[in-house]
């Protein structure tokens, strides 16, 4: 007897975590709960990356999605005060249409994806050095572009949200 049964079990648990968390984000009316469950989805996804042998990406996933993006979104939730309202008002008017549309596309795709019947991906042996080599040789230019994009996003976010001079704001408040 070996540990072969563990991988499908872990996969099933992670899949349930991913899908339940994702569904909760869409269905829950409390936004803080949705944000926390989104973090849970991201963590389960990191577990799937580990299962696929991509530990480095899993670490980045947690570092970026759980450590930064979820916290940023929680900030957004806290700064935009959101009062309780009837449940129907959380959804758009075109909900039935959207559900029909998404289901029409989603069900064939989900069924189709099971046609990739090949056995499990090759076992991991650390993807770190291969990943780093790729990023810094073949993809060096896109990497630079990505860093410029991040810089632009940072400056843009500061410009969009930054108030004017603090003294100016204080003077306006006094008036």
């Amino acid at each position, binding site marked *: 007897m070996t540990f072969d049964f563990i991988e*499908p079990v872990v996969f099933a648990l992670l899949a349930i975590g991913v899908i339940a968390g994702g569904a909760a984000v869409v269905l829950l009316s409390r936004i803080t709960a949705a944000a926390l469950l989104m973090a849970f989805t991201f963590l389960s996804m990191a577990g799937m990356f580990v299962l*696929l042998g991509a530990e480095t*990406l899993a670490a980045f996933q947690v570092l970026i999605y759980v450590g930064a993006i979820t916290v940023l979104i929680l900030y957004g939730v806290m700064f935009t005060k959101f009062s309780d309202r009837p449940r129907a008002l959380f959804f758009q008017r075109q909900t039935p249409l959207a559900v029909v549309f998404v289901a029409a596309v989603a069900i064939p795709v989900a069924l189709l994806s099971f046609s990739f019947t090949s056995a499990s991906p*090759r076992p991991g042996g650390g*993807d770190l050095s291969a*990943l780093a080599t790729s990023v810094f040789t073949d993809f060096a230019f896109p990497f630079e572009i990505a860093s410029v*994009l991040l810089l632009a*996003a940072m400056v843009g976010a500061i410009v969009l949200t930054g108030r004017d001079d603090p003294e100016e704001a204080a003077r306006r408040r006094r008036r």
Partner: protein
Amino acid sequence: MTVPLGAYVAVSAVLFFIGCAGVLVRRNAVVILMCVELMLNAANLALVAFSRKYGSIDERGSVFVVFVFVIAAAEVAVGLAIILSAYRNRPVVDVDQIHQMKG
């Protein structure tokens, strides 16, 4: 007994369409942003799964996941900034009610 590739892709597809439905269905701008993140993440899972299965030794597929991370971070930073500055002008986060630009 191991997990077939199709299972990973199926989970990815289901999560992608959950996120898609969320973007179409919800009103709150912050929740829409969250659903977009879910969609990006689903794409990541598919990229990693295919890369581990079919990729050559140098992890070309996984590199794109790194770029998706970058884009997700930039997107959420700018998206939240836009939501916050819109909220400052008029305190609503419903995308239905942010229609000042409508002709």
